Every structure is written in C-alpha cells, then in structure tokens.
C-alpha cells in the first residue's frame, strides 16, 4: 500500500497529465454528449454573455452597412405600396413607355428614391440639405423630400449630375401646403419664420377650423410635389391673426432637421403631364 502511495506521489505530474489528456480525448470523442457534461451549460452561459458584449460592439461597427441595406429595402417596399399607383377613371388607356404600370394596370404616380444626406444646415436663415444622388440617378427638380418616418423635409431645387440640393422647410422662401389631419377642410401654408429650427408656422388657416394643440398637420396632396398624408408636424401653439380672420399656428416639425441621415425623394411620374396641361390652359387664357 505504501509503495502505491509513493508511486503516485512520485509520478503525480505524469499521472495528472495522463488524466487530463484522457479527459480531453473523452470530451472530443463524446462531443455529442458534451451538453450533458458537468459545467458545460455554465460555460455556455459565460461564453454567451461575452459573445453578446462583442456582438454589441460588432453591430455598432456594422451600423452603416445595415443602414444602407435597410434603406435599400425600404425604397423597394415603398415602391410596392398601392397608394403609389393611380387608376384613371376610364377603361381606355393610352399606353406610353414612360410611365410604368403595376400588375393591375394602374399607373405609377409616386416613385420613392432613397438618398443619403451629405450636408445639412439648420443654423442659417436659408437652410439647404445636400443629397448624394443627382440627375444621373434619376432625381429631378421639384421633387418632394421626406425623412424615413414620413416627415416632410423639403423640396429639391437644384440637381447636378451626382448631387441634389434640397430647400429644407427651414428656409425663408419655403412654402408648401398643409392640412389638418382631423379637419381636412382646414388648410393653409407652411412657412418658416427663420427663428427656431424644428418649429414652423402654419398660416392662413381659417378660424372655423377645428385645431387643437397636439393635432397632426399633413401634406394636402393638392400640389404635384407631395402625395397626400406625409406628416409635416404637430401643433404646438395657436394664435389668432389679428389683421385677418385666420389662425397662425406654430407647429413642431415631424422631421428632425438636426440629424438627417437618409431621406427619400418622391418623384411624381405624372407631373410633366400636369405641367403641360397647365401651360396649355394658361396660353389659351393669355391669347
């Protein structure tokens, strides 16, 4: 007995080495039973936590890429929306190649085009947003621009080969038409007084309109620039205009102009036709 203990004591390291090796090989061979091994669940928990932490960092670093992918997907999805197609009130259609159709034969009216914001200002009186997409990528002048949450950003005023300049709502000359969501008859114009970014003025609203603090203001859809129902902002304060019989309403813009990253330009595929018609009507009157 004593000799055995002496042997073990003398060769303890070698025996420990053998034992550990055998245990390792046992683990390798019984890989599928590993999940039953003592402590493996515990190790899984620990490594899982470390992996999670790493994943947070990794995700942060991949944010740009995933944003890009989401933007692409959003653009594609928005273009599938039924509200972008309009059915003319007649069975007889003149088919031209310039306007695409969906599978039901409806004419496309609105086309969303994703664009990245490369430059943006909020501090001056006349603010512009510059987009990294231009005429070479099918952007045109006078398209409306919204942010990813459907908040109105502005209207494209200049287009070059690869860039477009958007006159943001925070511009002294910016003027778009809006209506109250709760009272579609209460329409008016959205302007900016040049004082506070993210706060706009909604003027020429008749006093009979049912306007409350917190109500939503939407685009009216009567201009060819924006479709109906894009959110402009939320009513913050309502003042009566003493010189006229109208309200002046201060609204908080839906788009946050401080951190615009991606926007969508909305092309009205029927705008040319509308404009041609208007020209024709005007020339007739002038003659």
């Amino acid at each position, binding site marked *: 007995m004593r000799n055995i203990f002496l042997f073990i004591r003398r060769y303890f390291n070698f025996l420990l080495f053998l034992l550990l*090796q055998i245990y390792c*090989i046992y*683990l390798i061979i019984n890989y599928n039973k590993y999940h039953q*091994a003592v402590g493996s669940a515990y190790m899984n928990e*620990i490594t899982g936590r470390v992996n999670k932490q790493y994943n947070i960092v990794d995700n942060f670093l991949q944010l740009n890429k995933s944003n890009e992918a989401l933007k692409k997907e959003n653009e594609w999805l928005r273009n599938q929306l039924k509200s972008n197609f309009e059915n003319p009130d007649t069975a007889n259609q003149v088919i031209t190649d310039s306007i695409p159709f969906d599978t039901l034969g409806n004419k496309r009216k609105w086309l969303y085009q994703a664009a990245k914001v490369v430059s943006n200002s909020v501090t001056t009186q006349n603010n512009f947003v510059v987009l990294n997409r231009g005429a070479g990528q099918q952007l045109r002048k006078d398209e409306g621009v919204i942010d990813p949450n459907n908040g109105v950003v502005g209207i494209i005023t200049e287009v070059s080969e690869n860039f477009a300049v958007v006159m943001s709502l925070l511009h002294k000359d910016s003027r778009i038409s809006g209506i109250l969501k709760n009272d579609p008859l209460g329409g008016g114009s959205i302007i900016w007084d040049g004082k506070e970014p993210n706060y706009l003025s909604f003027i020429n609203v008749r006093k009979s309109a049912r306007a409350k603090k917190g109500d939503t203001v939407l685009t009216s859809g009567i201009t060819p620039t924006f479709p109906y129902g894009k959110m402009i902002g939320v009513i913050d304060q309502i003042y009566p205009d003493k010189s006229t019989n109208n309200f002046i309403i201060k609204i908080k813009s839906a788009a946050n102009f401080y951190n615009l990253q991606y926007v969508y330009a909305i092309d009205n595929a029927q705008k040319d036709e509308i404009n041609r018609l208007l020209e024709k009507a005007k020339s007739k009157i002038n003659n």
Partner: protein
Amino acid sequence: MSTLVKNIVRFALLILMQFFVLDKIHLHQMVTPYIYFLFILWMPFKFNRTLQMVLAFALGFTLDSFRHSPGFHAAACVLIAYIRPFIINVLIPQEGADSNFEEPSARSMGGIFPYLVYAGLLTLIHHGWLFLLEALEFGNAWYFILKTLLSTIISLALIFITELLFSRKQKFRTNTV
C-alpha cells in the same frame, strides 16, 4: 502588477484576442494562426508543474467553450504545459537562471536563439497535437503535416510581433531567493 493579476489579465486578453480577432481571420484553409498559448509560454518559472497543467487545461477549455468544440485545445495546452519544464531545463544556460528571472523570455533564457527554440518547439508540439486530434476525424496525412508547419510559422511570426509590441521588462533578481 502582481503575478496573479498579471496572469489573470493575460489569460482574459489572450482568449479574447484569439477568439474575437484571430479566429475571424481566414488566411487560408491551411493556415490558422494561434497565439493564446503565449499564456503558457509566459507562465512564471516558480509555478509548480501541477499548477501549470491545471492552468493550461483551464485555458484550453475556455477557448474550447467559446468554439463549442470541447477537448481539442485543452489537450494541446496540457501537453505543452507538461513538456515545458523539460525544455526549459535543457535550454536554460546556467544553473539558477530560472530563479534569477521571473518568466521565460529572450533575456532570461540567455539570448534570442534559445528562446526561439523554446517557443518554436512548443508551438510545433501544440499545433501538431491539435491538428492531429482534428485530423483523426477528418483529413489526410500530407494535409496535416503541411498545415502544422505553415501554421507554426505564422504563429511564431505572431508571437515574435507580440514580443516586440509588448516588451516584458524582466528584472534581474538576486539569487538569494
């Protein structure tokens, strides 16, 4: 920094470095760089052999847990931890150098060459045993030999770079310990 804290930090950093950086690098199907076993190469002389093996097992088992392939690295680490003292005994230049310095390095082993032999041998054994265990399940002999040699070269290069980047200041202690 005390020996304990230093080794704990090393353990954690090397495992994280191995799993989250080196394992994400796909150089070639032949080449897999490993660096985490530097923990074993750098273990102090004064740890007794039992402790060295237990620590090596813990190191290998941790990496295995991350990779969900239990046993492979633990086996290779235990093997080099077991062999390490023999190699040090052969390579250490004069009597008592292992008590004059804290841990193996080019300085404590009396030059770059003995240290290179020490690191190279252990790396080769580690990779060889690791890939052998893997090859028992899949792969052929030539692939195994080539993979071991190429990976050893790359790992040694990485170890060399690590030694240059993080120079360990080895204080000469009097041999009155």
